[in-house]
């Protein structure tokens, strides 16, 4: 037996928290985690894995059902109001600027809202004032004079970035070859270790930060140390602000949480402070379920909590997460459709010692999709491993078949890179919780790079010179080797422009919109990952395949002389059919782009990472990309993430998966997103078979070291019907690209693109 906290009285004298910590940690197995911040060790020593099935789960209580009705009513009003329920234009949002807000104070178990009213959105101008003005205007509001004057003397991140941007960067950004950059809003993709607040309480965390800050005094005070010292001061203030916010709700979270209810509440307060401070694109939750399970199980063991009460706490917590909102502009929604928050919660996975991390609370978290209905948020992500217990694999697959709300990522490829306490930011970005942070960087459009190479650096749609100038392709037929040489010539320009833009953005973000709350919940010394991305990967691969295996003739615009169209004679192998001839082209081009990025040094010694992920920006990127040599027409959507071009993966679902599985995580450490849609009938004849077969498919896909899979089990006809009759499908949730959306929050254009995607079916 390992020693428990109450057996070891000396811990009392070792800890600043004193008595309150000893009682809060009663029954926990002791370890280093008591004297240093070490949540993962706490989990390893104290969690109880669960191998059983879902039968223990509890139905929603009457209270939960009542809250759900209130919530659904609010949602309906929000949708009727054009997607935004209300905006507060008077108060700049910070962790402490709003009075407490409630949905129904009497019935809430977990409290806390971003503003003083549910679904009311607030102005967060720290990233940029322009976005705030445009967003308010789009929904019939105007930013108050009060905020305008408060911010008239305040330099925002957005202003600072544009002050420093070079003309090259602006041109590339404008042309849509590099787009979606976080230069006018919060960068997001940072995950605070919100669990720390529950386990240690704020006082202990503040003590630790103070001692880290004091330790800096031994060093020379030069740029890196000055900055760190200032950041630590900001972090300490942020921790105190979390405390003030909790206090306004009547909670003292200076000490550690003593019960499951408190643990969830403390953790949620920390997360809430983060989404009050930052409006980052993706504000992920981390990996909290198994951590919280330790508290649930302790209370259940001690007879003070029933299963139904445990589920009720989880349901109320998730309901709060579903209420989170940021104020966005229509232009932003075009990139990231459906009002996503990416409150990503990573579930399952395996410890480095071989034990799996599935607990009853992993089930409870997934079960909220039944108790509260299907939903896009939180973005539930199962960390898949062949070693997960079979019953859990089956339950997850069943949830997919029933709700289309969850995604899968390969723990067996991520664990060797990120250890066993990482979480997912946004869709597919792994990072060690509290130890890594990311500089998010949207993506470059490599389908457009091909066109730029053909046209000597000029934009095929506007004629504008973007890259280095070369003559426009002279010959009638495109030659594969010569085209590759040209691309090799333009890739360094694109990579360099992209790196420069990212370095500027993140320098300025640190300076003008630093994530005090989230960074306070990291170690003081963090590893930084700079996440680049590519869009149009399969379009590029198919284009090059067409040039190599078919005959592609250039069609020129008579006025500009630019190559603006192509005629393709003959057949070519398309990405998505498990055909090495083209799949290898895709792999080579991705690796080349990654290698090229690595040639340029990064701000704060960040490490280069790359993703193949588009969110829903594949539609917008397509609009900005001319005709391509694969036969795709100007304006047509690119494929999402690493997906094959829609309709071209004709060899069945598994061939499509095999092609994507060839892309290596070694050079895409920020993730390779694949969205897979299969009709229920072709997955099996009944639910039992469908679940069994989906488990087998996931095992098969991930055993090939594939990284990610969004799973939709649905019929195209249903989506078409949902476009016509939205009222009949109020909660229709689908996975799009690394996240789920409520179908009705997509624009018509995005809905149609989703419908046009490949639905794998057997007749």
């Amino acid at each position, binding site marked *: 037996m390992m020693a428990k906290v109450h057996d070891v009285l000396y811990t009392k004298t070792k800890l600043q928290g004193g008595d309150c910590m000893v009682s809060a940690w009663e029954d926990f197995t002791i370890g280093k985690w008591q004297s240093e911040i070490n949540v993962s060790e706490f989990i390893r020593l104290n969690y109880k894995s669960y191998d059983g099935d879902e039968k223990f789960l509890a139905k929603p209580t009457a209270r939960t059902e009542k809250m759900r009705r209130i919530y659904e009513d609010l949602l309906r009003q929000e949708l009727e109001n054009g997607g935004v329920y209300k905006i507060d234009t008077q108060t700049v949002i910070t962790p402490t600027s709003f009075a407490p807000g409630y949905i129904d104070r009497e019935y809430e178990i977990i409290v806390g809202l971003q503003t003083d009213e549910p679904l009311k959105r607030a102005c967060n101008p720290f990233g940029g004032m322009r976005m705030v003005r445009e967003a308010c205007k789009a929904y019939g509001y105007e930013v108050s004079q009060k905020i305008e004057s408060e911010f008239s003397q305040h330099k925002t991140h957005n202003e600072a970035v544009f002050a420093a941007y070079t003309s090259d960067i602006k041109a590339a950004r404008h042309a849509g070859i590099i787009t979606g950059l976080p230069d006018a809003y919060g960068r997001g993709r940072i995950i605070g270790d919100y669990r720390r607040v529950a386990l240690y309480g704020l006082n202990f965390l503040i003590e630790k930060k103070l001692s880290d800050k004091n330790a800096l005094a031994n060093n020379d005070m030069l740029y890196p140390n000055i900055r760190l010292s200032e950041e630590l001061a900001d972090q300490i203030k942020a921790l105190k602000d979390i405390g003030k916010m909790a206090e306004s709700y009547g909670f003292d979270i200076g000490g550690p949480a003593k019960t499951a209810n408190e643990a969830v509440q403390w953790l949620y307060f920390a997360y809430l402070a983060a989404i009050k401070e930052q409006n980052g694109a993706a504000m992920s939750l981390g990996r909290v379920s198994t951590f919280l399970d330790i508290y649930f199980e302790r209370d259940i063991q001690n007879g003070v909590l029933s299963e139904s009460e445990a589920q009720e706490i989880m349901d109320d917590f998730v309901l709060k997460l579903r209420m989170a909102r940021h104020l966005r502009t229509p232009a932003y929604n075009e990139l990231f459709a459906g009002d996503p928050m990416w409150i990503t919660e990573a579930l399952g996975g395996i410890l480095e010692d071989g034990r799996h991390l599935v607990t009853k609370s992993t089930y409870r978290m997934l079960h909220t999709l039944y108790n509260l209905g299907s939903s896009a948020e939180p973005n539930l992500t199962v960390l898949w491993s062949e070693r997960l217990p079979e019953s859990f694999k089956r339950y997850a697959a069943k949830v997919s078949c029933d709700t289309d709300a969850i995604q899968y990522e390969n723990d067996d490829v991520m664990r060797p890179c990120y250890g066993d306490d990482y979480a997912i930011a946004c869709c597919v970005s792994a990072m060690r919780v509290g130890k890594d942070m990311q500089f998010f960087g949207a993506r470059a459009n490599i389908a457009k790079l091909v066109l730029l190479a053909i046209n000597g650096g000029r934009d095929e749609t506007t004629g504008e010179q973007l890259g280095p100038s070369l003559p426009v392709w002279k010959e009638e037929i495109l030659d594969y080797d010569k085209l590759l040489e040209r691309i090799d010539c333009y890739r360094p320009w694109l990579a360099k422009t992209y790196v420069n833009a990212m370095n500027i953005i993140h320098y300025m973000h640190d300076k003008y919109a630093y994530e005090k709350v989230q960074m306070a919940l990291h170690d003081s010394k963090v590893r930084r990952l700079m996440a680049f991305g590519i869009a149009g990967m399969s379009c590029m691969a198919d284009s090059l395949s067409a040039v190599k295996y078919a005959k592609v003739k250039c069609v020129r615009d008579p006025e500009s002389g630019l190559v603006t169209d192509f005629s393709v004679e003959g057949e070519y192998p398309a990405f998505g059919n498990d055909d090495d001839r083209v799949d290898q082209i895709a792999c080579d081009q991705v690796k080349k782009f990654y290698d090229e990025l690595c040639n340029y040094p990064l701000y704060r010694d960040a490490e280069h990472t790359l993703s193949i992920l588009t969110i829903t920006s594949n539609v917008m990127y397509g609009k900005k990309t001319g005709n391509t040599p694969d036969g795709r027409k100007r304006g047509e959507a690119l494929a999402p993430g690493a997906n094959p071009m829609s309709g071209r993966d004709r*060899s069945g679902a*598994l061939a499509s998966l095999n092609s994507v599985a060839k892309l290596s995580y070694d050079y895409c450490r920020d993730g390779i997103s694949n969205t897979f849609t299969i009709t229920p009938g072709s*997955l*099996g*004849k009944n639910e039992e078979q*469908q679940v069994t077969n989906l488990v087998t*498919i996931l*095992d098969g896909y991930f055993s090939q070291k594939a990284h990610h899979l969004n799973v939709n089990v649905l019929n195209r006809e249903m989506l078409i019907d949902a476009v016509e009759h939205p009222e009949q499908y109020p909660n229709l949730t689908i996975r799009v690209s690394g996240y789920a959306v409520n179908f009705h929050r997509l624009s018509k254009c995005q809905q149609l693109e989703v419908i046009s995607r490949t639905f794998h079916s057997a007749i």
Partner: protein
Amino acid sequence: MKGRVHSLQSMGAVDGPGVRFVIFLQGCPLRCVYCHNPETWPLGVGKEMDTGGLVQKILRYRSYFGKNGGVTVSGGEPLMQPKFVTELFQKLHEEKIHTALDTSGIVGGREAEVVLRHTDLAIVDLKFTNAEDYREYCKGDYHAVKEFLALTERMDIPLWIRHVVIPGINDNIRDIKELQKQAVAYGNLEKLEWLPFHNMCKEKYQELGMIFPLEKTPALSKEKLRALTETSDISPA
């Protein structure tokens, strides 16, 4: 050796147990009025593939087969190319991959027997329950099918019987009961599957410049099928 292949489907989950790689072969002697793949009738067309290359391709999907999956050879009528199927199944067995034969059972004889020696599951489409109907709607010999079914029983090959229920032709209790009676008589029967007729192949016929004899027949609804077969679905224990 080489065979004539109509197409390959990397994922089939409705033609045999588990997740399966499905091979559709060219050639069929029957002319069923409700056939959904008339392009597979002629034998001399399609893509020539050899068993070795095909096995290499299949091995790329092995990780998806799990405990129950494998390969199903369908058609057309796969027994039109028995030597090809035999060699393919032999090679798959060397790789320990489960083999299923999706057949009408119309082609019997010694060569079919050789194929069955390497077959882990026979999925036989028993289209009609008497010689008259079989002749009328399929242009084939009902007795040959019964002989084939008896052969699978003698060889003790696990058997699934399938049957398409077509509005206006056999969507009545009498035919359903008769089919059920004949099916359960085989000691090797593991499963009886009822498939509803659908008419999604109309366009395919049009493109081929052919007439679809059941163009005007409506699809059979799930509810109707359930009502007809409720008590007669037999699944393996």
